[in-house]
């Protein structure tokens, strides 16, 4: 029986002939915050989406809280209730208000009564600092506010694990901070989190462990200070150089093979 909150064994995923994940083994302990970084197309979002089965793995196993997600006989809806997911594009339900976005899933999925669902909604909106936007529609909010509502919506379901898929990538730079602040508090409260991100300062400060992926495999992982601060692998160093100081590139690089860089 796996002791970890998330356990991934020999995970492979192909889209047609394109093998996006080529054998991933990864554990996330209860209460641990793991940031997954890597160039676009490295398979990090696909990895995250395999954890709650938004993508069906081609091979391998995924366990969440001891339940095998990849088991064909598992009640996937029941497993997903324990996994909160936050998307790059927020994906709030645009036709209902902020409060209704939080209430609807509690009522329909958890069968909570109206009063209880409303109370939980209020509590979680308060948690992300948006209590005063309770009656607004998603389109009336800024991107940062929408993302915080999306986090509150996931939290209202009482998840054991939170997955973040590039939660700040679609935001204007000045709105990123509010979202990261909410995530930082959540990490401090002991939530188990798996975060795909390009925010290196967040990874360095909040992550217990950073995983660097490239070409569908985990190239390097370890404490944030080591992977981001003193990477051992050439590919990690190249990626970090590009991301931390994009203007430093002397001439356009072909990114493949990575040895050509710099």
């Amino acid at each position, binding site marked *: 029986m796996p002791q970890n909150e998330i356990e991934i064994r020999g995970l492979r995923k192909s889209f047609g002939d394109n093998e996006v994940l080529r054998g991933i083994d990864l554990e996330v302990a209860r209460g641990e915050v793991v940031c997954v970084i890597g160039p676009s197309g490295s398979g990090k979002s696909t990895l995250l989406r395999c954890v709650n089965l938004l993508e069906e793995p081609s091979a391998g196993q995924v366990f969440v809280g001891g339940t095998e997600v990849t088991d064909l006989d598992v009640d996937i809806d029941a497993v997903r209730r324990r996994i909160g997911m936050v998307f790059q594009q927020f994906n709030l339900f645009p036709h209902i208000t902020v409060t209704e976005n939080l209430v609807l899933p509690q009522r329909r999925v*958890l069968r909570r009564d109206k009063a209880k669902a409303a109370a939980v909604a209020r509590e979680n909106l308060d948690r992300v600092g948006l209590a005063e936007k309770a009656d607004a529609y998603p389109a009336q909010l800024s991107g940062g506010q929408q993302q915080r509502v999306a986090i509150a919506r996931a939290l209202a379901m009482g998840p054991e694990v939170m997955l973040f898929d590039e939660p700040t990538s679609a935001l204007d730079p000045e709105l990123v901070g509010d979202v990261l602040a909410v995530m930082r508090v959540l990490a401090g409260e002991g939530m188990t989190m798996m975060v795909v991100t390009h925010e290196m300062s967040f990874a360095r400060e909040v992550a217990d462990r950073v995983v660097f992926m490239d070409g569908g495999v985990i190239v390097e992982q370890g404490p944030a200070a080591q992977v981001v601060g003193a990477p051992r692998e050439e590919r990690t160093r190249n990626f970090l150089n590009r991301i931390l100081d994009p203007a430093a590139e002397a001439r356009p690089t072909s990114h493949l093979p990575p040895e050509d860089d710099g």
Partner: protein
Amino acid sequence: MTSRLTRRQRRRVSQGIQYAVFVGVLVTIGVLADWDRLQNQFAQTDLIGKLFPDIITIALRNTVVYTLSGFAFGLVLGLVVALMRLSSVAPYRWVAGIYIELFRGLPALLIFIFVGVAVPLAFPGTEIPGGTYGKVALGLGLVAAAYMAETIRAGIQAVPKGQMEAARSLGFSHARAMVSVIIPQAFRIVIPPLTNELVLLFKDSSLVLFLGVTLEERELTKYGRDLASQSANSTPILVAGLCYLMVTVPLSFVVRRLEARADRAR
């Protein structure tokens, strides 16, 4: 000589000719038309008086009832066909595809004759529930469902993929996500085209003419035709036409408003 004209002059000449032709045609019609005869045939005032209130309380009312019952039936059936068209089970998709092609490819009149004549002949003793109203709802609804199914399918597919993913990752089953999240958004998208369909149905309800109806069941077209032949005068047809326009023109206006609003929201 034309080459001597400035651009402004040339534009003025061109516009002048177009207006002259327009006025000329109007004057010709005005002079040639037999106005007394026209008024006598199409706008006989005492005959207009006799049409009311029945043309409103019976004919227009029936037209509205037929249209709404056909629309309601078509909407439910159309939603089912649209969901079948999107099903992961291939036979459902085939059946829905065949249904849509069949009923869009046949004249509505043929469907009406089928429902009104062929079915009672083929299955004697079976009654379509609701009498004439049931038959009309069935005939209009079967045709409307085929068009609405395609509209609704497009609406469902226009809802971003992330909406389903968000709902599923919150623990919604696929069916529950459809009902609670996707379909409500799809309907917002398809309200303008569905209103358009309502206008089309409103006019198609005139096909009831071919079903054989009692006096109390007559709708606008049948009523207008009956009274026109009774009185050997075309005025009832004109009045019936105006009754259609009273409904279709405002509805079309609403559709344009809705479409404009949807465009702005995008």
